């Protein structure tokens, strides 16, 4: 009985040692993965910052004003002035929906009998 317990505990210790070994490497693997992910997040972050900075730089008010001036012929953009505000009753009602088509007319057909192309 005692011998059996000895063997059992020795096997237990070996099992635990194997488990600990395994866990150790699993943990290190996970840590490495976390480090990689952090590095990726860091890269993404700096990319994002760069893009944000570029966006802010391209949209700086001076540049937008110059662009609006340069393209005035095409776009006709003006600074927002008080007369840009309107009243609700100045807004047109949406156009009435089209009346239902009750007499459909086919405008295309599957195969022209004389071989001519459908329009």
């Amino acid at each position: 009985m005692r011998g059996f317990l000895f063997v059992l505990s020795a096997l237990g210790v070996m099992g635990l040692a194997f488990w600990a070994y395994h866990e150790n490497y699993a943990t290190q693997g996970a840590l490495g993965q976390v480090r990689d992910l952090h590095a990726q997040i860091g890269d993404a972050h700096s990319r994002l910052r760069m893009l944000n900075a570029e966006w802010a730089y391209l949209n700086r008010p001076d540049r937008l004003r110059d662009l609006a001036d340069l393209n005035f012929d095409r776009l006709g953009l003006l600074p927002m002035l008080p007369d840009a505000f309107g009243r609700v009753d100045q807004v047109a009602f949406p156009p009435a929906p089209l009346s239902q088509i009750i007499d459909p007319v086919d405008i295309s057909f599957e195969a022209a009998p004389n071989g001519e192309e459908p329009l």
Partner: protein
Amino acid sequence: MIRRPLRPLARILRARAAGTDPAMIETAERRARVEVVRDRARLRAEGRLLLLAGAFFLAFGAVGGRMAVLAASEPQEPRAAATGSPIIGQRADITDRNGRVLATNFETHALYAQPPMMVDPAHATRELAAIFPELDADRLLRDFTGSRTFLWVRRTISPEQMQLVHDIGEPGLLFGPRDMRLYPNGAIAAHILGGASYGREGVDAAEVIGVAGVERFFDASLRDPANEGAPLTLSIDLTVQAAMEDVLAGGMALMNARGAAAIIMDVHTGEIMAMASLPDFDPNNRPAVLTTGDQSDSPLFNRALQGVYELGSVFKIFAIGQALDLGLINPSTMVDTSGPMTWGRFRISDFHNYGPELSAMDVIVKSSNIGTARVALQIGQARQRAFLDSLGFLVPTRLEMVEAATGVPLLPRDWSEISLLTISYGHGLSTSPLHLAAGYASMVNGGTLVTPTLLRQDQVAPGPRIISAQTSAQMRDMLRQVVVRGTASFAEVEGYEVGGKTGTADKPRPGGGYYDDRVIATFAGIFPASDPAYVIIVSLDEPVETSGAEPRRTAGWTAVPVAAEIIRRTAPLMGLRPVIEPAQTDGVIRASN
């Protein structure tokens, strides 16, 4: 096991034969047995003690060894237990109230050289001088061929320049990563942001530190990694700021002014929507501080915050407002304006003669110095001083910028009766335009104190009461009348019910006395006057309007039109709808023929 008998027969017989006591033999045998047992027990105990000592030695040895290892090793971030993201170690961004970036970071590289590693210093110098024209080639060559082992060539270089330097192929030219502070909007809001520079520098990294403005004031929190890069949100609206600076620069050029300052502030929360001082600078390339001459000539000088001036008639509102609140007068009380008024050796006169008396309302509308001074006499020095103190006019503002503490109001040495009179119409007490903005906001927002702030506020509890709500309404009415039929008629912006007060103050000479032809023209306005949302201050330094037969310098001709244009441009941007009177519409005319 062979046991030795206690009484071995042979020895017993021999003893008997010899006549000795055989019991002695038994005793000796017993003793021998006990000794054997004792020896064995001792050995065992000694072994155990040794084992125990060994175990303790190992245990303490392990603790001691671990301590030695920990003491000798480089400190390291615990990887598994690190909370949050370890990436965001950069200085936080600064954004405007809508999240538009005002300051951010940009990854660039620094260029440094290690002359001992260099192969061909002369070639490298030639190439570097071609890439960076501002470098001094002779000095660079001296540094490269001298005894130096390390030198910085450039603090920041662009990726293109980096590639060009790379192409030189010199192993002694090396790059270190650098975070560069970038202000993408250039000079817009330059004085508020301030600027940044490098603190401690290493090859691998450098500290970015704020040198002025909010960058300096919030330096610690911008750099605090615990904030995880959360941006600092200011109350500034970038669009409003840009439009205001645009108009102000145009106005300053038209009015031939030396400088200009403008502030737009929320009258309820004290949030500064826009604040500008011209001339300004580019915070990406902050100019050096003047070492000689007057600091107020430097573009770094913030006229809106640091410039303390006698602001003139815009102050009349406070004297009249206090008298109304104390119940000394009401808007229709007639005030004696016959002049000139003499007080000791001092003479107070008006711009025009306004006749023997005016109502309190008209004292403000026509801006009568004599009328205001007579009202101030009823208030008295102590009450005037306490009132201005409660509005914050006697101490620097507590705005979140390092420069705020330098905007110290200049007070009269002794608050004499003559000070009482002159301060009532804005002379003898020098304050910054920001003080004035806060004072006006407190007067018109229903009468509670407003503290100016540069941080976006979601909700602000009303401050302590300064004047009653009824007085505040009367002040709004008076300010509106100044625009409708008084000195600020150019401030009328259709749809926005602008109210306000002009102030034209002679500039003091450095030696004493005042200049005749140099003024500070100020307009302090509110809009819309019936329920004010914003207060606007526009101040021009030495403006001259030359379209007429003779040069005009009064605020009504200089600061007011600029302020009106600013309101016309910025009010729609802040979402204020103009109140449009129903226009004459071209109705459809029924006609028949």
